[in-house]
């Protein structure tokens, strides 16, 4: 599905990603772990084209490095940014509408607005409230739903459980599995291990700008050194 080879990225002159390579298979959940500030979000942004990528990014074999973010999105990559990046002045419904790639729902779409409201009943009640008024957790959910409305084939989810209550964290885990079941690949960026270990097929651990571990959750559990050195556990 997605194949990243020797990816570099820069903010001005600071070299953030220093040769990152990995791939994500069809319908697979891959988690990208690491401490604060190692460059996980930057990886997502580089794939989207929001930060200019240097290196090769292939989606279903097609090179997408150098494309504009909206072009990447149209090719089927969805990105759920961190920090509750909702449009505060628009209503919940309008936020979701903006997630769609075309003005009207297409027949083949995997998700409809009703699906979203079913999954998160909080949002349904608030459908016509401006998103800025939502609670922190609700904003987090909205961000995710909005991206799904665009019917991506691969979603990159950046810290989706931030600020969610324990119950809600579980709900998100369930949702992610449901997403994968519908044949969508997931690149999950997380800091907390709990759900990553539970739902992902493979784990990636990032050090300063490059990957320091790649393997199954089981292998990860066995590798104490990586956990100590690269994660705060």
């Amino acid at each position: 599905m997605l194949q990243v080879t020797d990816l570099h990225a820069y903010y001005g002159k600071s070299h953030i990603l220093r040769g990152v390579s990995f791939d994500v298979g069809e319908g697979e959940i891959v988690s990208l772990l690491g401490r604060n500030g190692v460059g996980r979000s930057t990886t997502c942004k580089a794939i989207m084209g929001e930060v200019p990528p240097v290196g090769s990014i292939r989606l279903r074999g097609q090179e997408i490095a150098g494309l504009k973010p909206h072009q990447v999105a149209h090719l089927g990559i969805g990105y759920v940014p961190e920090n509750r990046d909702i449009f505060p002045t628009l209503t919940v419904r309008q936020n979701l509408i903006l997630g769609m790639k075309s003005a009207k729902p297409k027949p083949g779409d995997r998700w409809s607005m009703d699906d979203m409201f079913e999954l998160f009943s909080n949002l349904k009640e608030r459908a016509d409230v401006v998103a800025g008024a939502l609670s922190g957790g609700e904003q987090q959910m909205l961000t995710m739903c909005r991206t799904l409305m665009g019917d991506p084939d691969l979603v990159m989810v950046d810290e989706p459980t931030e600020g969610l209550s324990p119950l809600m964290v579980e709900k998100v885990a369930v949702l992610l599995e449901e997403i994968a079941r519908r044949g969508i690949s997931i690149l999950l960026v997380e800091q907390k291990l709990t759900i990553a270990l539970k739902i992902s097929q493979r784990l990636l651990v990032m050090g300063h700008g490059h990957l320091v571990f790649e393997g199954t959750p089981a292998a990860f559990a066995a590798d104490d050194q990586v956990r100590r050195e690269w994660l705060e556990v």
Partner: protein
Amino acid sequence: MSATETGSAATGKSGDRTGAEPAWKRVADDQMRRGAFRRTLPVWGAAFVVLMIMPLLFSSAVGVTIMNQMGISIVFALSYNMLLGQGGMLSFGHAVYFGLGGFLSVHVMNYVEYDGWWLPLPLLPFVGGLFGLAFAVPIGSFSTRRAGTVFAMISLGVGELVAACSIIFVAFFGGEEGVSGDRTMGPPVFGSEFLSEVEVYYLIAGIVLVAALFMYLFSRTPAGRMANAVRDNEERAEFVGYSQRYVRFVSFCASGFFAGMAGGLFAINYEILTEENLNLVTSGWVLLMAFIGGVGFFVGPIVGAIVLTLLQTVLSNHTELWQLYVGILFVLTVMYAPRGLTGLVAMHGPALRTGRLGILARAYGAAVVPLLAFLAGVVLLLEMGNVANQSVVGESEAHVFGLTLDVSTVAPWLVALALAAGGGYALVRLAPRLRDAFARATGQAGAAS
């Protein structure tokens, strides 16, 4: 990046990491030392000296007149920046306080002349200021309720209303003729009756210095600092105990006071006030002065006032296209120097501090000739085009840069075109090198963008 440091440092109490003196004490001292007024004294002293010797350098009547106009504009633009730069309030009607302060000053001047009021002339600007304040208080009481577009639009509405009133209420505003007075009628001050321009100059210079000083100090007071805070985040200011509305109101009133003072200076210098002094054009000019100079800097509006006054009074005598040039300057400034002319200079601060100005000087040196060629070419084209456009038979001569060019022949056009195209091309080619030199000189990653 430093998020990890935060964690460990957060646990550290007022630790004495630097030895005898705790670190926080050093920071506090440092802050106080850097913010000390003493440190700016040399600048004020230099300003004083410059103001004193200017009339010796430019002694012609018109030179002094232009400097007087500059002084008035400086006070006015600084007062405007109290709103826009410091308080984040975009006003389209600041001329209201300038004009009303000025009109009332002229009326007071007339009372001095005819009704025997006693008022030495140097105090008149303060009277103007008080009137500016007197109008700012009621208007500010409702317009500062909100910031942003609401404030901007109210200021526009009020500006239009007052400008309209100035035509309707002839008894007060004197209609189209305006109101005139005579500054020499007050009691003499130190033997001066302010008959000559130079005497007026020194009066204005003194007031400019005093007003600028007070406006500078205002920005360092709690009220001034909170104006900044409210500009940045009005909601948060409410949660540290400040009423955003009242903070804006205080800035607004102070700004009205100084605008009125500038109006008083205008009354002294020109001895007449007319409708143009409080209409929207004047309000627009002061916005431009502040912005072109740079609203993010205290000296920004001063620079803007000087440059724009020069453009308006000097350039306009050399070309009838001056407004076109001013328009181009505005647009280019906003596009390429959004922090104003002062920002353009301040940008070079890091290079200066690290002593790497040399790198830049070389790069700039290489660009000077193409730049001049380009500018010359463009100006020539415009001026010749203007002459060619006007159908005056037998007058096909354009006078530019002291040259006389015949626009009915091909040669000058070719030369101008070559200059513009060649200069422009060379500049485009040089641009990456300039950018690179800049990045190297300032040592900033990505500073070029």
